């Protein structure tokens, strides 16, 4: 160490004058020296803080609002112009209404890397000429008109959008937006309603249960995910059966066309729950092209229009009389064929041909649809009691179905009803008051389910991915109005109507079917009854285990032979034949000549496909 010849490095210690003097001087030196440093550090920090504060104030106070708008533009994702909605499915899970992403193509010629001709040719190779609004040449001219933001008329599907993207062309902008489609076309139009091109629900469940169909509002954080079609797996399940609905819609349309009728409706209800399996209305429209439809077709007249039920109301009246005990099922009624109540003559439809039938049973009153017999049956009740019963059955009110535009029924004021004998007399054969076809189904539901007034409905609820209902529409509790015995007695009478009466056209081989025809004169706009009529047939099946109510109403069928038993009953028969197959209702008696009606292969195939 000491042998080193190198010069020692000068000490690294700074040349601070060492305190050599008095202790006071040393203390003074020590006090002085760090203060300078402290102050300088402090100054630097303060300067930094002041700078930061100044910058912050500038950002926040001076240009804060501008920055905020810029940030919003960058962060916020443009919400789609049309909000997507949940799917609707039918009883079997077939999709009835769904959202599909469609793209709108915007072209910005200023961003083109290729010549407009090349772009136009490339587009023409993917899109149809009418989707482009012309051929390639027209497209090139279009590109020349505007530098950016040219909207092409094409509605581009996901698949086409993929092919467009694969072209890798600059200056094309695909803007996605959900569009509501109804795969079954017009089949469910009167139930689902439609949403217009802006995505606004207009009719049906789309309108009345819009809040359940719409997805919950997204927070801005979630919007980043940007799922256009489905945000959760919840679907709205309807009670309708698309197979039955299709059969009803097709046959109804055929009947309406055959009789040149104004309109028609077929309703099938499961009376135990109030679920509607079918709600077919004709004429109807295609919700995918609602803009081509006539406006009057948009409303579902089965819930929004009133009609006088006519003879289809007679079983209800009989049930009222039986329930109050003013008549017994085995009583005989004297049918004069024509009576005079006050100044009003009342006669049977067939009075001209048959005249008075004399003493007949209550069953025969229904079998022959005797108006005079019904007047005599209801005369046994006090008119005030009768009126209370009508109110109890909800006549003059609504059924409470989820569909929009349901109207209250009409019934005379209590004073008028009680004060005038003719009111009760006309009501006894179903005229002088009005209700919706749906309400008639509800009333007959009481006969089918043992006396409970259930709420007819078309929506089961919201179904989650596990198949569990997360939301169900609220319905009033079923209300008991008739005893089971009464309903059994009335059903037995109604069965006679079908097996050997005016409703014979609805007979289904092997099954006991209860039914009642109805042909009511329609009141003209001036209040008097005119030549037009409304024909209907209501049926309850099977009598052995009553469950389903089927109603067919055809309004203003033309022709001499247009009655409930000739127009509506065959329609109900077609419905019943399908219903017993689809619902697996066992026949009440062995099938006659089973070998002939053995299911053919075609029929089996039919079942398979439509399921």
């Amino acid at each position, binding site marked *: 160490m*000491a*042998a080193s010849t190198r010069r020692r490095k000068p000490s690294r210690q700074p040349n601070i004058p060492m305190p050599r003097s008095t202790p006071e001087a040393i203390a003074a030196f020590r006090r002085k020296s760090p203060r300078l440093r402290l102050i300088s550090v402090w100054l630097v920090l303060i300067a930094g803080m002041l700078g930061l504060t100044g910058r912050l104030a500038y950002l926040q106070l001076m240009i804060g609002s501008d920055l905020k708008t810029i940030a919003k533009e960058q962060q916020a994702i443009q919400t789609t112009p049309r909000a997507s909605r949940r*799917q609707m499915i039918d009883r079997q899970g*077939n*999709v009835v209404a*769904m*959202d*599909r*992403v469609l793209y709108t193509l915007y072209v910005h010629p200023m961003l083109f890397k290729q010549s407009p001709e090349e772009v136009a040719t490339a587009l023409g190779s993917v899109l149809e000429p009418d989707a482009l609004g012309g051929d390639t040449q027209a497209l090139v001219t279009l590109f020349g008109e505007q530098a950016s933001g040219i909207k092409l008329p094409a509605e581009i*599907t*996901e*698949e086409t959008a993929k092919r467009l993207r694969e072209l890798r062309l600059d200056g094309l902008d695909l803007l996605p937006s959900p569009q509501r*489609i109804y*795969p*079954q*076309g017009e089949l469910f139009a009167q139930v689902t309603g439609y949403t217009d091109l802006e995505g606004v629900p207009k009719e049906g469940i789309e309108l009345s249960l819009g809040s359940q169909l719409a997805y919950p509002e997204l927070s801005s954080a979630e919007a980043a*995910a*940007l*799922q*256009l*079609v*489905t945000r959760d797996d919840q679907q709205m399940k309807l009670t309708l059966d698309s197979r039955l609905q*299709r*059969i009803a819609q*097709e046959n109804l349309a055929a009947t309406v066309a055959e009789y040149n009728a104004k309109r028609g409706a077929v309703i099938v209800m499961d009376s135990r729950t109030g679920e509607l399996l079918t709600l077919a209305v004709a004429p109807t429209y295609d919700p995918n092209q609602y803009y081509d439809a006539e406006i009057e077709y948009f409303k579902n007249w089965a819930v929004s229009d009133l009609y006088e039920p006519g003879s289809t109301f007679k079983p209800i009246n009989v049930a009222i009389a039986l329930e109050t005990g003013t008549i017994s099922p085995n009583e005989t009624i004297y049918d004069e064929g024509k009576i005079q109540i006050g100044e009003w003559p009342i006669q049977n439809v067939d009075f001209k041909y048959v005249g008075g039938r004399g003493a007949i049973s209550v069953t025969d009153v229904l079998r022959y649809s005797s108006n005079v017999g019904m007047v005599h049956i209801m005369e046994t009740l006090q008119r005030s009691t009768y009126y209370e019963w009508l109110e109890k059955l909800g006549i003059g009110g609504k059924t409470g179905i989820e569909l929009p535009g349901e109207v209250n029924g009409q019934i005379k004021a209590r004073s008028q009803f009680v004060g005038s004998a003719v009111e009760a007399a006309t009501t006894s054969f179903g005229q002088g008051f009005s209700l919706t076809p749906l309400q008639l189904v509800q009333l007959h539901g009481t006969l089918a389910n043992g006396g409970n007034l259930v709420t007819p409905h078309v929506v089961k609820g919201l179904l989650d991915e596990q198949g569990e209902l997360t939301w169900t529409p609220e319905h009033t509790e079923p209300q008991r109005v008739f005893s089971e015995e009464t309903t059994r007695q009335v059903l037995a009478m109604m069965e006679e109507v079908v097996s050997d009466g005016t409703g014979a056209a609805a007979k*289904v*081989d*092997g*099954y006991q079917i209860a039914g009642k025809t109805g042909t009511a004169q329609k009141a003209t706009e001036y209040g008097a009854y005119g030549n037009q009529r409304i024909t209907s047939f209501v049926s309850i099946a099977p009598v052995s285990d009553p469950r389903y109510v089927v109603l067919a109403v055809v309004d203003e069928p033309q022709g001499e032979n247009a009655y409930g038993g000739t127009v509506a009953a065959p329609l109900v028969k*077609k419905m*019943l*034949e*399908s219903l*017993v*197959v*689809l619902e*697996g209702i*066992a*026949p009440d008696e062995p*099938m006659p000549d*089973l070998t002939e*009606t*053995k*299911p*053919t292969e*075609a*029929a*089996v*195939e*039919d*079942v398979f*496909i*439509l399921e």
Partner: protein
Amino acid sequence: MVFATDFDPIDSSTRRQAPSKVGARDGANAETVSPLHQTNRLIAQAQAKSITQKAAQQARSRNMVAQKVQSEGEDIAIAARGLSQPVTQNILAPLPLPTKPTLPLGLQILNRVQHGTTAFTGLLIAGALALYGSSVYVDKSADRAMAHLNHLQGESQQLTSANESIKQSLAEQALQENSGLEPYESGDVLFVTPEPLRESMEPEEKPVKRLRPLGY
């Protein structure tokens, strides 16, 4: 006073002095060596002796200083003072063993706190890095998953719409005459009523008939 650092060993080394010794031995006249030279040499020898002693002494005290420095910086001053003290006393007096100085309680606590916070800071930094990394990763993978989900949903929606339109077109075809599809009729369903359970039959014990001869 001569410090070890000022001592030039080359000057006082024996090799350097050797020629003069040789000269003295070989020289015919030893007397020719001046007395001044002799005294000088003696002084130098005495000096060299005391220097080596002191050097050893100093080396010892340096060791001690080093030990003390190792223990605490504060002791350096004491050690330095010890150095400057006359050495002769130290040679005889036994050296006090360095004792670990006890720090005041406040400093001890501060020391602990410092160690603790250092470790804590390390953990925090590691945690922050991990968190940052994971946040980037989670974000990326969530983005990817979301894109995948979107894609799948788009596909499922396409499939559904295709499926439903096929059903619709089939139903429309069924409407046409001669489509081979016919509407339902009430006799289309066969209801099979299950037979009442038959009594379980005991398998009869059949006498085994032996074939003879069984083999040849």
